[in-house]
Structure formats: structure tokens, C-alpha cells
């Protein structure tokens, strides 16, 4: 909205600030000046303003002048709306409000013998030509310009009809089925029975509060004019405007709640300007009002306000005195309130009954008045204080576990990513732990984002693919996020983590060869995550491809489930080659997902230090030959079964295949470490342990390599 400081100053003869200062002071009070343009000597500045929708009263020059008057505590000149004596009418002009629920007031003034012509600066307070020139507002004719001038001056829309085109009188009513209206924009519109119209006794003349009609508009030949200034219901105007795809200055104002008491003022302003070019008023102003609407707008009940409440909410100011009764009275009076001290108020605890201005429908409650006091006083004049310290800080029960999981992944070289909350229905079906419990959106951003993600895997795959398709070949990502399941009636949310990798290990070396990341690398990550928690049992298993248990996105022979305390905690492995092909991924992708809600049920592992033996450990290596069908787990179990306390560690050092060993067999180098806490182990003891190891693995199906 454009505002002229020259025009503002006409209402504020004592304004002490220059245009730049005024702009800043207004802005800091929520009346935002976005740009200031110098209009040359004597013309002041043009403000480009952004007024929030709740402050429709300030979307005009007089409203902003009122704000300035309140800020600086200077006088605001009243609008001069004195009119010449009217000539008596034979019969008063007829106005009838039929739609009493949505038209609160309709004033009509008849002007006769009007000369339609060009606008000029008619009299002080009606500098139409100068102001419109500075605003670059097109001059049309004195009648149209007068209504625009009134609107720019004090914000109330009016409309001028050619009186001789009106049959009988005015009826404000809803449109009838089948009625048509040609509006000022030249469009012929089919009216809806819900549209509010200003009609005469024969047909609709205008879309009430939105746009006038073609047939009753002012023309150069017009001699007699009817000035309409009315109050229409915000919702009714909004609906009518929307229905017809219209957004006009008038509808903008009415939609946001017009000033019930402004109609006669606006009418007088327009009439004065028109009469400056000749003509006379016929009859008194016809003023039809709906009492129920007047009561809830201009006639609202006064609001109680106590200084103690002002101070309780607002606190300390930089000025030691704080907010005083004087400040409250000055600010609210300047804004148009009337304050009456209440009888019960004690001397040191002033309180008032505050009568509210008709143009401030946004003020309804005590807190609204407190806000006005703070706003006009200036937010930045309040002190910076801190509340007294309250209670201790409580951590979320899973906060530490989440930090631990994140830290483990970061340490393993995975970058944290945040992916889309949504996925396609197809991806949801592929990755949902329970495909029947997938939640679709009602108004998705796109078809590809039509479903709340039941798993982090679709997002992870999209991000991995994004990297690989951009020739970033080494990818290590994880995402901690919410996954959704349920129905459109009830949605469950669970925390999960997904991780994915492709290319080489997260290591950069100038000398050592790169190594491609593989299944056991991601298994290692899962093991490390699990190792941070205290679980009686953690195990990995897999299921036959045709059992329908393995997730369809995983390679059936390179995937595993991880379980803790008997509950599935997640899945990981290599992406199914079918899915890789569908996503045009040539590289092997390793990925997995863990259900963190289940993991967080486990306590975090609390480290407990044990004595470190001072005695020398002894490592013995065993080279075993095994059938392909015998997996490490079996050897591992057989060694655990020995229960030799001095056998402190055993692990696989190397797995290799050699044609000389025979088909369907492989070889495994196993290192076993013996150590006692209290003595150096004797050769005979070691010999005996070694024999027991060989015997145990032998029973498990391994033989020593010759």
C-alpha cells in the first residue's frame, strides 16, 4: 500500500519527526514501512507499506496518522465533513435491508445537479489532483475519484450510482436464481443465490462490497448521484468475491471487517468533493441499520483493564518507572478508546472500563489492550530481564541412546542425511514391515510422495542413487528419523535408523589400495551399534528366500536379520539386484534399517573395568578345512562349549578357498588366545587346551589342514 507523508502531515500539524524517523517509529510499532521514496521538494515521501491483515484500520492515511499521533502524543486533526444544508425531498429515498444477517448498515445520500468532469484540488483536505499525481493514481472523473479519495483518506469504500438509473429504491438482498449482472469490469455474471447484491426494485445493481454494476455507473451525462456507504459482513463479501474471482479494494476492506461508524463520514467526504463542482443535497442521509450487527461491532461492551494486569504481563521497562497509568491512558485515548476509571480501583491500583473504537474490531479483550499499550509504548523500550530459574532440566528417556547410536555411525564414517518424509505407494509396499498398514496422504506434493514413509529405506535408496548418478562413487549415509504405520484413522510413529553404503570403505590412503565395502562391513556397523546396548542375547539369522520373511528389497543370500532379546531389531545386507536394476544402480549397494524403538528399550551398556592380566598371553593359530555347509557359527559354538576360562579370545583371521583342498570346501585360519589372570601358562597346559580345541572343532566338522 502506498502512503504519502504529505497527506499524513495534513492530519498531523505538530508532527515532530522527519519522514525517515516517522518510518522507523511506525515500523517498530508494527505499521511496517518497507520502502521510502523521496518525491522531491515540498512533496514529502512515498511510503511503501505492508500492513498486517488484522490492522485493516491502518490501511489508509488517516489510520496511519492516528498511529503517529499515538506514538508522538500529538494532536490528530478531525476530518472535516461538514456539509451544506440539504434541500428537502418530497419523499425520502427508499432503502431496505432484506439480508439483515450480512448487511449491517446502508446509508444513501442523494445529490442532484452534479457536474461530472475532471478532478482538481477542490479545497484544503481534498487535494485530489496533487495527491493522485504523487501516488500515480489515474484520474478518472470527479465522481469516481471522490470515492477513491475517501477510500485512500480514511479507508471506507463507497459507491456512486447514477440515480436516474435506479428504479424505485435500494434493496440489499441475496441474488435470485438466474439473475444476471454486468459488473464495472464489463463482465456479465451469472449470480449465485448466495451472492449479496445491492438492487433496485427491478434488478441487481452491484455486487455488494465487491464491485458496482455497469448499467448504473456514473457517465459524463450523469446529473444526479446516489452515494452508497455501507457495512457488509466479512464472510459474505469474501465468499461473493471468491465465487466471482474478484479481489477489489472494496472487498479487501470489507473482508477484513470495516468500521461500522465510518459510513456517514465516508459518505460526507465523497459528497463534499462532488458538491465542490456544483449541485445540491436532496433530503437527509438515509441510514438503515441492523441493530444486532451494530451491537457486535460499534456497540461492543467496554472492556475492563487494570494497571496491575498490564504490569504483570509486560514486566519491566528500561525506564525504572515502568508502565504507568498515564502511559496507559495516553496510548489508548490516542488510539480512539474512551477510558473511565472504575469505582473499585484503589489509588495505587488504577483500573478502567475501556470503550473500544468502532474501527478496531481486532480489540476485544483485556490482553488486546495490553498489547496495544506495549506496541505503542515501543517493544524495544522494555528491559531485558530473565525469569527466575525454574526446575531442573529433564532429559528425554531415549536421548542418550539416540546420541550413542548417532555417534557410532559417525565414527564408522557414515554421514548423517535427512531424507523425504514421503515415498511412492510402490516403495511403501516394497519396504513396509506391514504392507497393509501404510498411510496415504490426501493432498500429496506429488504422486511420488503420496505416502507417509513406512521405512527409511526408500529415502536412503533415493539418496544413494542420487550420489551414484552424479558420479559420487563412495557413499556412506545414515538417517535417523520417524517411520509411520497404521491407518488413516490412527497413525503410529516410531524412530528408526537406516544406513546405506556403496563403493569403498570410508578410508583415504595414498598408498594402500581401496577396498570395496561389503556385507561384513555393514554387519560390523550393526554389531557396533548393538554393542552399545546391554542385551542378554543378540543374534543374526536369515531365512530361506521362499519363506516370505526376508524383506523383498534385500538380496536373499546376502542379508540378515538382527535380533536382540528375541525381538527383531532390524535387517541389513545387499540391495536385491532386481531393485538395483530398477533404480539403474550398477554398483553393489549395502544397506539396512534398525527399529530404534526396540533398541531403546534395552539399557545402554555401562562399562565395567576388569583387571588386566599381567601374565603373557599365548596365541595359537589353527588352519581348518571345512565343508561349505559348515558355517562359522558352528565352530564358534563348539569353542564356546569348551568353557576353558584361560581361552580368552578366538577369532577368524582369514577365510580362503583353494582348489587343492577339494570342491565345496574352504579353509579358515583361526587364532585362539590363552591367558591366565594369575600365572604364566605352562607348556603342558597349552598342549592340553590345544588338543581340546582340535577335538571340539573336529566334532563340529572341521579338520586341521595338513
Amino acid at each position, binding site marked *: 500500500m502506498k502512503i504519502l507523508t504529505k497527506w499524513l502531515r495534513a492530519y498531523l500539524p505538530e508532527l515532530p519527526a522527519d519522514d525517515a524517523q516517522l518510518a522507523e517509529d511506525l515500523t517498530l510499532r508494527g505499521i511496517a514501512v518497507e520502502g521510502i521514496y523521496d518525491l522531491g521538494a515540498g512533496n514529502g515521501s512515498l511510503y511503501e507499506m505492508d500492513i498486517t491483515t488484522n490492522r485493516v484500520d491502518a490501511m489508509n492515511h488517516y489510520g496511519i496518522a492516528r498511529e503517529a499521533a499515538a506514538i508522538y502524543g500529538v494532536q490528530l486533526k478531525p476530518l472535516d465533513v461538514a456539509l451544506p444544508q440539504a434541500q428537502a425531498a418530497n419523499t425520502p429515498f427508499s432503502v431496505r435491508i432484506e439480508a439483515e444477517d450480512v448487511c449491517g448498515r446502508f446509508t444513501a445520500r442523494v445529490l442532484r445537479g452534479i457536474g461530472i468532469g475532471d478532478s482538481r484540488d477542490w479545497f484544503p483536505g481534498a487535494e485530489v489532483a496533487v495527491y493522485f499525481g504523487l501516488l500515480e493514481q489515474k484520474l478518472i472523473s470527479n465522481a469516481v475519484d471522490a470515492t477513491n479519495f475517501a477510500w485512500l483518506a480514511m479507508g471506507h469504500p463507497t459507491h456512486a450510482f447514477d440515480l436516474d438509473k435506479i428504479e424505485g429504491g435500494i434493496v440489499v438482498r441475496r441474488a435470485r436464481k438466474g439473475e444476471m449482472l454486468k459488473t464495472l469490469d464489463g463482465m456479465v455474471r451469472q449470480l449465485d443465490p448466495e451472492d449479496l447484491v445491492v438492487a433496485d426494485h427491478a434488478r441487481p445493481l452491484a455486487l455488494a462490497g465487491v464491485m458496482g454494476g455497469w448499467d448504473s455507473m456514473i457517465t459524463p451525462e450523469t446529473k444526479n448521484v446516489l452515494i452508497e456507504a455501507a457495512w457488509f459482513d466479512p464472510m459474505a463479501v469474501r465468499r461473493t468475491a471468491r465465487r466471482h474471482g474478484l479481489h477489489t479494494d472494496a472487498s479487501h476492506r470489507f473482508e477484513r471487517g470495516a468500521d461500522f461508524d465510518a459510513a456517514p463520514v465516508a459518505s460526507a467526504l465523497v459528497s463534499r468533493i462532488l458538491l465542490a463542482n456544483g449541485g445540491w443535497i436532496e433530503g437527509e442521509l438515509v441510514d438503515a441499520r441492523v441493530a444486532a450487527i451494530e451491537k457486535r461491532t460499534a456497540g461492543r461492551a467496554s472492556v475492563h483493564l487494570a494497571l496491575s494486569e498490564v504490569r504483570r504481563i509486560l514486566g519491566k521497562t528500561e525506564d525504572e518507572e515502568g508502565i504507568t497509568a498515564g502511559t496507559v491512558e495516553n496510548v489508548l485515548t490516542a488510539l480512539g478508546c474512551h477510558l473511565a476509571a472504575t469505582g473499585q480501583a484503589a489509588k495505587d491500583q488504577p483500573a478502567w472500563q475501556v470503550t473500544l473504537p468502532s474501527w478496531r474490531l481486532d480489540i476485544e479483550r483485556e490482553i488486546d489492550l495490553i498489547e496495544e499499550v506495549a506496541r505503542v509504548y515501543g517493544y524495544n523500550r522494555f*528491559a531485558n530481564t530473565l525469569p527466575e530459574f525454574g526446575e531442573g532440566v529433564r532429559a528425554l528417556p531415549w*536421548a542418550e541412546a539416540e546420541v550413542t547410536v548417532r555417534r557410532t555411525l559417525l565414527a564408522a564414517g557414515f554421514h548423517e542425511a535427512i531424507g523425504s*518424509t514421503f515415498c511412492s505407494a510402490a516403495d511403501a509396499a516394497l519396504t513396509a514391515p506391514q504392507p497393509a498398514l501404510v498411510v496415504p496422504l490426501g493432498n500429496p506434493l506429488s504422486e511420488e510422495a503420496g505416502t507417509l514413509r513406512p521405512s527409511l529405506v526408500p529415502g536412503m535408496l533415493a539418496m544413494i542413487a542420487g550420489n551414484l548418478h552424479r558420479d559420487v562413487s563412495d557413499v556412506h549415509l545414515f538417517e535417523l528419523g520417524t517411520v509411520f504405520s497404521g491407518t488413516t484413522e490412527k497413525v503410529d510413529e516410531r524412530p528408526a535408523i537406516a544406513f546405506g553404503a556403496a563403493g569403498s570403505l570410508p578410508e583415504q590412503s595414498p598408498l594402500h589400495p581401496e577396498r570395496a565395502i561389503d556385507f561384513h562391513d555393514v554387519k560390523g556397523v550393526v554389531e557396533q551399534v548393538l554393542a552399545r546396548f546391554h542385551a542378554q542375547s543378540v543374534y543374526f539369522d536369515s531365512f530361506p528366500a521362499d519363506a516370505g520373511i526376508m524383506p523383498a528389497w534385500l538380496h536373499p543370500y546376502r542379508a540378515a536379520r538382527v535380533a536382540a532379546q528375541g525381538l527383531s531389531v532390524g535387517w541389513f545386507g545387499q540391495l536385491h539386484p532386481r531393485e538395483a536394476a530398477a533404480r539403474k544402480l550398477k554398483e553393489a549397494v549395502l544397506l539396512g534399517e534398525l527399529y530404534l524403538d526396540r533398541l531403546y528399550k534395552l539399557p545402554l551398556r555401562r562399562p565395567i573395568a576388569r583387571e588386566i592380566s599381567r601374565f603373557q598371553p599365548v596365541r595359537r593359530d589353527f588352519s581348518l578345512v571345512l565343508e561349505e555347509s559348515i558355517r562359522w557359527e558352528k565352530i564358534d559354538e563348539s569353542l564356546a562349549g569348551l568353557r576353558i576360562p584361560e581361552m580368552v579370545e578366538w577369532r577368524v583371521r582369514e577365510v580362503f578357498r583353494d582348489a587343492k583342498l577339494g570342491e565345496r570346501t574352504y579353509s579358515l585360519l583361526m587364532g585362539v588366545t590363552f591367558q591366565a589372570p594369575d600365572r604364566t601358562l605352562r607348556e603342558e597346559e597349552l598342549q592340553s587346551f590345544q588338543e581340546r580345541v582340535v577335538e571340539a572343532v573336529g566334532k563340529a566338522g572341521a579338520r586341521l589342514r595338513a
Partner: protein
Amino acid sequence: MTNDAIPNLTAFDEAALDRAFASLAQQARDAAAALGTSEAIESFRLEWLGRRQGRLNEISSSWLKAAPPEAKKLLGQRFNALKKLVEDLLDQAAGGGPSDAALAAEAVDITLPGTRRLTGAEHPITRTLNEIVSVFAALGYSVGVGPEVETDYYNFESMNFPPGHPARDTQDTLVVANQERRLQRDRLLLRTHTSPVQMRTMESQPPPVRIVIPGKVHRNDAADATHSPIFHQVEGLCVDTKITFSDLKGTLDHAMKALFGSAVKTRFFPSFFPFTEPSADVQISCIFCGGKGCRKCKQSGWIELLGCGMVDPAVFAFAAGKQPAYDPKKISGFAFGMGVERIAMMKYGISEIGQFFAGDMRFLEQFV
């Protein structure tokens, strides 16, 4: 070996002791100077330090025993000095190690880059969230969380969004399918702000409340350089007796200084939010130019960063339905909210909001 046998000592005065030990020290030095091979070093060690026949052992057993009690201390000091000398000589001889030529053959190119076990980077949003949360934790705020799929009641109604409020339009809100036939308040949607957690927290506990709420939110916005349908907010809520607007100002002024440096200034503008009154927008002095005006702050010297205000009594009235202690006549409070992406973009010089959600390794690895 040319070393003399250990003589018997007859005089135990200081001069005699000095002479005897000086002679032994000289013998040790001479012998050490000639040491070359590791075998020679070993035999030198045995000669002097050997447990049974070592010369030091011999001195100890013959001289020390023979010494009168008053000379024992003097002798002991000199003995220890000699022993240290022998050990040092041994160290020197042994330290000679392999020849320089042999060592040169083992040279590495120290200018080649080091081998790096790469660690992962925390996401810049997580990092920024954590920074904000820890600033408020230091002020006594606990973390509050709530669901990402919310009801209309918590997201809008209880936050005092009147029916017909533009923010309720499906244009701005992503909704779960098939909600049309449900009561307005029960309809499920993706929360458009973290504010609903204010109500959930107040319903679950009487005042005082002091929480920060970090979280993911969604809007049905077209994506561009600064808008994303997915983004994050941190919301704050402080409710108690005697909480004032000046407390809100002081709290946010402190928090902004903690986040952006103590030179940062704040200023507050009137604004409008349905769930606060009075409401304010907060600007901080431009962190790039210090307030002088630059391209980043559009020459204004200020950057708009967050919204805040005193909790609207209507919001307390909703909470009082379950927790009567939220009586707006007895308690008061403030709330604030900030967009995490915007802060992270400023802090790290990021120009496209979409980069946060693309999972691009080249973007993410910058935050290690």
C-alpha cells in the same frame, strides 16, 4: 679387556675416593669409545654391570664392605655416579644403531597425504538444532517432543487458530487421506509447526513449564531456494507465575548472543500469531556486516530470525481443560519459534534449502 683389576682400597677419605673413582670412570670411557659391534657392547655391559662378575658388583662388595661407617655415604654417592656413567655410555653405544645409510633406505615421502579413517559428519540441521537446544538447556529448558502427524485440534484449534483461518487451508497443510468425514478436530495432518507440543506438554503437566521443542514440520509449499515442504523448527515455551514480556525479551536477547556472538543486538517488532499476544518478530543485527548494511541483510543491517510472544489467554484456556492450574489470571508465559534451516543457512553460508534433504555426500562431508 685392558681394564685393571679392582684394586683394594685402603684410604677412605674424599680425595682417595675421588682418585679411585676417576680412574675407574676413565677406564669405562676408554672402553666404551672402542665399542662397535653389538657383541662388544654386550660384553662391555657384562664386564661392568654383570650380576656376578661385573666390576661394579665387585666394587660394591669389596670397597663398600671395607669402608668405615662414616665413609659409606661418600662412597655410595660416587658409586652411584659411576654406575650412571656406565649406563649412559651403554645407551650411547647402543643408540648408535644401524648406519645412516641403512636408515636412509627406509625414507618415506612425508609430503604424501596421511591415511585417513574418515569419520562421518553430523547433519548441519542436527548440529544447529543441538546448538539451539543446548543454549536453552543452560537456561533450564528441557526438551519436549510430539508426533509429526497431528490432529487439527493440537495443530490449529488449541493454538487459537479460528475456523476459516487461512493457515488451515489445505493449500498450506499436508493432510492424511480420507479425513473429510471426521470431526474437524480429529482430522489428521502433518504438523505445520512444532507449536502443538506446547499444548501436549501443558496437558501433561501443571506449571511451571520450560521446554524447547525441536522437530520436523511440513507444509504444502512449492520448493524453491528458500522454501521446502520439509523443514525444522525449534519452539520454546516458558510458563510460570510472574513470567513477563521483558523476560521474553531478555531470554531471546541472551539466546541470540549465545548463538551468534555477544556483539549481536536484538530488536522486537509487533507481529501477529494466533497463539500469542502480544506477539513479536525478532531481528538480530546482521551477523555478516555487524549492522552496517550488506547484501545479506538487504542493506538494512538487520536480519529477521524468529517469532515470539506472550502465550494468549485463549491457549491457556484450552490447556486448563485438562490442567486447571493454567489459569491465565494466575500464570503467564511466553513462547517463541524459529526456523532451523534459515539459521543453518546463515551460519554455514548455504544458498539452497534443498541441499539439506538431498543426501549429497559432497555437501554433507563439508560438515565433518
